[in-house]
């Protein structure tokens, strides 16, 4: 019975506690006591044995009574309404209801006297009944159901009223004074009782019980416990202050176990538990015990926020960090204490005092605490609105955490637990990797200023602490000096910071830790414009092969690293490489999701709430975002630079190679527009630039690009724009030469150079390159410094004949593959992977075969070409393992070719992996994207099954 109250009450307490709070504050001591009296009395009558729940119950008693009475009043109103319309059916229902409520109230209200409200209702009903029975006319007019109800009501009422005859009579005598008098009476009673009770407890109850009392007092304070501190402390002091020497390890231990046992149970006040435990840390007898309790405090603090999506309150987080530091202090001071979560320590392990020489084992896991703290920090940044001051303030806590992480790492390293240390190191790396040097410096300065200003802060805090200490009474028995450093030490450059941590992690970390570190490292190198280093790291680590099997946040990290790598390549003027890195992100049009920087709505697919929640949980905090506008600009510009000459070269060619499908689609869309307005967004700008570039008008093209606002985000804006201008000139020249070669017989170098504002050498080099690669059917006439064009444009018939042979070739190829796929052989001695690849080709080829009627060969060509650059890239660094995964992706070919343009075999290397992973990482969408991605989607769902 009691427990039923308990659960019901638990949900209401929050609303009610404040009421109670006010009351108890005004009522001070006696009120408090009164509450207890009631409980105790209740306990005696009802369920005296269940002492554990006593504090909760008492609280509920008070509130539940009010609540029941309220309910009853509501029912009374219903009865009145029913009377007005003479509706006996609903009257009957209400009557049943009020009887039920009475039962409940009876449980709440002590004694056997029913509440006056109920009596009032009975009186009212009796009167009305008499009236109704008297009025025969009306009775006849009633509907049958109504009459039936009236009759049954008559009998019920009669029977019922017998029980309460006395009260009814009393009520009829003086209906108003009844209720008031009763209440007064009650209060008097309470007051009397409380005094009595208090005396009793003080005198007779043993220590243990008193403790409980203290807890009760504390328990009432839930929510506003800070205000109530003094009172509670007074109570606590009663047990512990009375005679410090009497407090033994056993008492503390027992109490501790009691509190811990309640943990996680429904309705346990989480905050109050923290408070209780915090108090216990003060009275702990040995350092080991203090440590043990502190661990529980920290766990309890983590418990305060139970939901996965919300974050821990910031003040609790800070307290938690402080607690961790104290833990470290203890560990530092008592090197014989070992923290371990593998073995269950012995019962009395923590009893061993500070002077105990042997090792003391305490259960706990520092690393997981640090990790949890970090996640909470991350979550809080996710949740806080980035445009508020709070967000900025929250950032100031970062050094605090870094200090803690550093200390824990140092401690673990001293212990020789490098594996754990590397985990902590990873957390540190992840806080720093995305910071450019300026931001890093700012953080360092902040930390230093903290350190300087800490004295002041500390002094204040100390005073506060002192005040609190005084209020709280006893100083903790185990005084811990601050041994662990509170001041972070950051190396001058973030690179040095990263290097020191990274080398540790590479040596000792597990696979996931290493992979994440590698990605962070790549990201960091990219920020610092070290493309070659970052690229080599990426390629040598083979990360892109395995990333689709990794967890979601690692995949996001991978995407971020790729995006940053692309930006870095662009800054360095490596257009094909930049395109190779970025094109992937943009193929699905889900950049935001892939980078976890917001949610894009998909038209085709409704997300389930779980997916959305999952997605939200992985979002990057605002300060870690990569500017999407810049990213898009870079991607589209790279695509433009590669695609425009390519389009010019292949206008009539049957084997149209598409470098960037995304770009082509955008271009088509913009061409379809009947009216092109001035460019507004990034896309418009690039499209306008593309139109200019197609005509070979580099000036206009550059002017449009230059007007993009997003360039101000770049550090070396001028240099990059110059680079861009040079690139645009080159491509304009190439486009021009290809497009208009049929109109010229010869073209002088001087003129060409002048037209595009290039140096003659450069123009010569560009043209020569085209001649060598046979993009341009021409040659130089050295004495006159002219390009002589050999117009070898095939006639229509010839072109068609070419197309025919091409198609036949493709047909033959796909036949062969189909045969191979069918027989599973024909390529004896090749490793199985290769063969699998062959089968995938078949898929690609087959797709092409279906399409070739409408003259588009892109799909099958994609399938065919992907292999070649892939091998080139795959061989590098990797003993050939690298290329494997990605070949089956249909679009692997495009990317490879994109990279191939600049001769970078490696770019195909990272494409291959990227594709799968782009789809791999958001499986919930992959399914929608059409058949060509199906393989990857399937792959992912398999791999995810175990993980999520």
């Amino acid at each position, binding site marked *: 019975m009691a427990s039923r109250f308990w659960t019901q009450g638990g949900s209401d307490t929050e609303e009610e506690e404040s009421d109670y709070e006010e009351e108890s504050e005004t009522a001070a001591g006696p009120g408090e006591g009164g509450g207890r009296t009631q409980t105790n009395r209740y306990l005696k009558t009802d369920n005296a044995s269940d002492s554990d729940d006593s504090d909760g119950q008492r609280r509920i008693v008070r509130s539940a009574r009010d609540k029941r009475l309220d309910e009853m009043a509501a029912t009374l109103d219903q009865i009145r309404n029913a009377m007005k319309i003479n509706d006996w059916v609903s009257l009957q229902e209400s009557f049943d209801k009020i009887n039920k409520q009475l039962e409940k109230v009876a449980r709440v209200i002590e004694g056997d006297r029913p509440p006056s409200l109920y009596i009032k209702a009975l009186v009212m009903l009796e009167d009305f009944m008499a009236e109704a029975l008297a009025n025969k006319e009306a009775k006849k007019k009633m509907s049958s159901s109504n009459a039936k109800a009236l009759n049954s009501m008559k009998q019920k009422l009669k029977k019922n009223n017998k029980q309460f005859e006395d009260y009814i009579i009393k009520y009829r005598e003086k209906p108003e004074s009844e209720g008031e008098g009763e209440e007064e009476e009650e209060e008097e009673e309470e007051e009397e009782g409380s005094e009595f009770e208090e005396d009793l407890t003080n005198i007779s109850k043993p220590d243990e019980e008193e403790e409980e009392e203290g807890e009760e007092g504390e328990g009432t304070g839930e929510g506003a416990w800070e205000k109530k501190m003094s009172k509670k402390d007074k109570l606590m002091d009663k047990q512990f202050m009375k005679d410090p020497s009497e407090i033994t390890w056993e008492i503390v231990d027992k109490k501790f176990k009691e509190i811990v046992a309640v943990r996680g149970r429904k309705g346990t006040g989480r905050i109050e538990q923290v408070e209780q435990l915090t108090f216990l840390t003060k009275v702990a007898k040995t350092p080991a015990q203090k440590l043990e309790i502190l661990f529980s405090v920290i766990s309890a603090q983590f418990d305060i926020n139970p939901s996965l999506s919300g974050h821990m309150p910031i003040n609790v987080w800070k307290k938690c960090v402080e607690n961790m530091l104290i833990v470290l202090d203890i560990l530092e001071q008592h090197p014989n204490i070992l923290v371990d979560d593998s073995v269950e320590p012995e019962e009395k392990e923590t009893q061993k005092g500070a002077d105990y020489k042997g090792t003391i084992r305490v259960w706990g896991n520092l690393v997981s605490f640090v990790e949890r703290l970090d996640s909470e920090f991350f979550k809080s940044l996710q949740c806080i609105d980035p445009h508020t001051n709070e967000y900025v303030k929250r950032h100031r806590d970062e050094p605090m955490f870094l200090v803690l992480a550093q200390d824990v790492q140092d401690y673990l390293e001293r212990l020789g637990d490098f594996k754990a240390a590397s985990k902590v190191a990873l957390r540190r790396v992840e806080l720093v990797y995305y910071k450019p040097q300026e931001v890093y410096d700012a953080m360092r300065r902040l930390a230093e200023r903290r350190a300087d200003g800490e004295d002041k802060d500390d002094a204040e805090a100390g005073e506060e602490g002192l005040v609190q200490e005084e209020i709280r009474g006893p100083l903790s028995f185990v005084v811990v000096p601050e041994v662990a450093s509170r001041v972070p030490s950051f190396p001058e450059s973030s690179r040095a910071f990263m290097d020191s941590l990274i080398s540790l992690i590479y040596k000792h970390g597990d696979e996931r830790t290493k992979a994440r570190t590698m990605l962070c490292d790549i990201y960091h190198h990219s920020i610092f414009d070290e493309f070659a280093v970052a690229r080599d790291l990426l390629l040598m680590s083979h990360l892109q092969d395995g990333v689709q099997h990794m967890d979601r946040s690692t995949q996001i990290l991978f995407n971020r690293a790729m995006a940053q790598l692309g930006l870095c390549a662009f800054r360095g003027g490596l257009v094909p490489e930049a395109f190779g890195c970025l094109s992937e992100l943009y193929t699905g049009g889900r950049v935001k999701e892939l980078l976890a920087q917001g949610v894009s709505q998909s038209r085709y697919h409704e997300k389930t709430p779980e997916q959305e929640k999952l997605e939200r949980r992985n979002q990057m905090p605002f300060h870690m975002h990569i500017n999407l506008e810049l990213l898009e600009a870079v991607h589209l510009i790279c695509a433009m630079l590669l695609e425009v000459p390519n389009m010019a070269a292949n206008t009539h060619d049957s084997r149209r190679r598409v470098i960037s499908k995304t770009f082509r689609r955008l271009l088509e869309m913009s061409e379809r527009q009947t009216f092109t307005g001035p460019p507004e967004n990034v896309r418009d700008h690039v499209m306008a630039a593309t139109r200019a570039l197609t005509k070979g008008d580099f000036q206009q093209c550059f002017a449009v690009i230059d007007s993009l606002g997003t360039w101000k985000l770049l550090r070396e804006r001028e240099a990059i724009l110059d680079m861009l201008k040079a690139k645009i000139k080159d491509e304009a020249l190439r486009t021009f030469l290809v497009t208009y070669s049929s109109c010229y017989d010869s073209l002088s170098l001087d003129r060409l150079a002048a037209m595009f504002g290039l140096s003659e050498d450069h123009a010569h080099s560009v043209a020569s*390159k085209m001649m060598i690669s046979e993009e341009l059917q021409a*040659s130089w006439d*050295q004495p006159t410094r002219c390009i002589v064009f050999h117009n*070898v444009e095939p006639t229509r018939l010839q072109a068609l004949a*070419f197309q025919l042979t091409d198609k036949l070739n493709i047909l033959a190829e796909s036949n062969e593959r189909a045969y191979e796929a069918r027989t599973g052989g024909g390529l004896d001695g090749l490793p199985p992977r290769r063969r699998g690849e062959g089968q995938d080709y078949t898929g690609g080829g087959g797709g092409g075969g279906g399409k070739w009627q409408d003259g588009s060969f892109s799909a099958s060509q994609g399938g065919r070409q992907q292999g070649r650059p892939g091998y080139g890239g795959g061989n590098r660094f990797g003993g050939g393992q690298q290329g494997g995964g990605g070949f089956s992706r249909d679009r692997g070919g495009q990317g490879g070719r994109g990279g191939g343009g600049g001769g970078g075999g490696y770019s195909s290397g990272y494409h291959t992996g990227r594709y799968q992973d782009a789809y791999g990482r958001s499986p919930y969408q992959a399914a929608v994207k059409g058949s060509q991605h199906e393989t990857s989607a399937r792959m992912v769902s398999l791999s995810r099954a175990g993980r999520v």
Partner: protein
Amino acid sequence: MALHQQYDLTSRIAAHLDRHLVFPLLEFLQERQQYPDDEILKAKIELLSETNMVDYAGDIHKSLYHTEEVPKEMLDRRAEVVMRLKSLEDSAAPLISFLQNASLVQELRPDKQYNLMMLNERYQIGPDQIEALYQYAKFQFECGNYSGAADYLYQYRALCTNSDRSLSALWGKLAAEILMQNWDTALEELNPSFFLVTPTLQNFSSPLSQLQNRIWLMHWSLFIFFNHENGRNGIIDLFFQDRYLNAIQTNAQHLLRYVGTAVIVNKRRRNMLKELVKVIQQEQHSYKDPITEFLECLYVNYDFEGAQQKLRECEIVILNDPFLGKRVEDATFSTVPLRDEFLENARLFIFETYGRIHQRIYIGMLAEKLNMDEDEAKRWIMNLVRNSKLDARIDSASSSLIMGTNHLNIYEQIIENAKNLSMRTSVLAKNILENVQPQGSR
């Protein structure tokens, strides 16, 4: 810093060589007079201090400080070395005496286990003695007695069962052969050891040590490849294997110089050029020297002026490189054969590329590009044309060279495209039929 010093790779290469193998490099540097003599001598002493070639170190010390006295520690060391040698000799003596007796050696059979048993039973030569042989050989090597070391190591390998030891014996043998300049044997030796490094190591060693081993092997092999007449093909075969190319890209980019040179000089391995250029481009941020830059100018940027200039730098680099700049002394004058070959081939490269994109070239200009005078250039071109390496004619009137156009006839292209279709289809059809028939008969 002078050009030749700037591109001196000695320090980078030495890191991957055996101590003893660095000597030839230092000798070369001394010969080239690139660095002050004193510095080199000091470096030599430094080098020798870890070896047992105490007498030699003493000699160098004398010549360096122009004294007759040898420092005391060197004398001490000498005594120690001699003592050590004695003791090792003693412990290995039974086996050595056995091996020196030709008739006894005849008893050995190819079966290792049998040999061990036999030695153990009849001559009381156990694993200890065999181990002693290894130590003794190593000591001999340290002392500079390479031929002795090589012999002992050879015999040790016949008896040894420990694969790690066997491998280091192999390395020792290779080093000894190189130092004795037995290029033929060294090349032979290279093959087994190179096989050892590639496949077997793979099974039981970390990728890192594999990489290290490969890099060592490549460095050591430079001695052989650039001294053996057959080495030019060998270097390309070895270095262009994927694993080795990866190793170069990962940790030994400076080897690109040698690969580049080898490819340029080797007429028959032209096809490797494309791959090499790709690699060079990828690594240009981490390694650059005139030879790689030359290739880059020529095949990436088509910058002929630049290539020209780089070619001149290449010459200096080649002359000052210990592997490339090997001299051949004739009675009266000395030449560097590799340089001449390199220049000749590089010139041809430039000309070829230049010719491909030009229709008409002024010969005077060409001569300038090729570092020749006009008549010489004309003769050179005429030779090329005559050897039908070049489809071109000289127009004497305008003193220009007219390149033949080499466009494929469009019909030829179409025929080319369709040519193998019928063959492929018939093969396919045959395959299908073959597959179907057995099934049908079953």
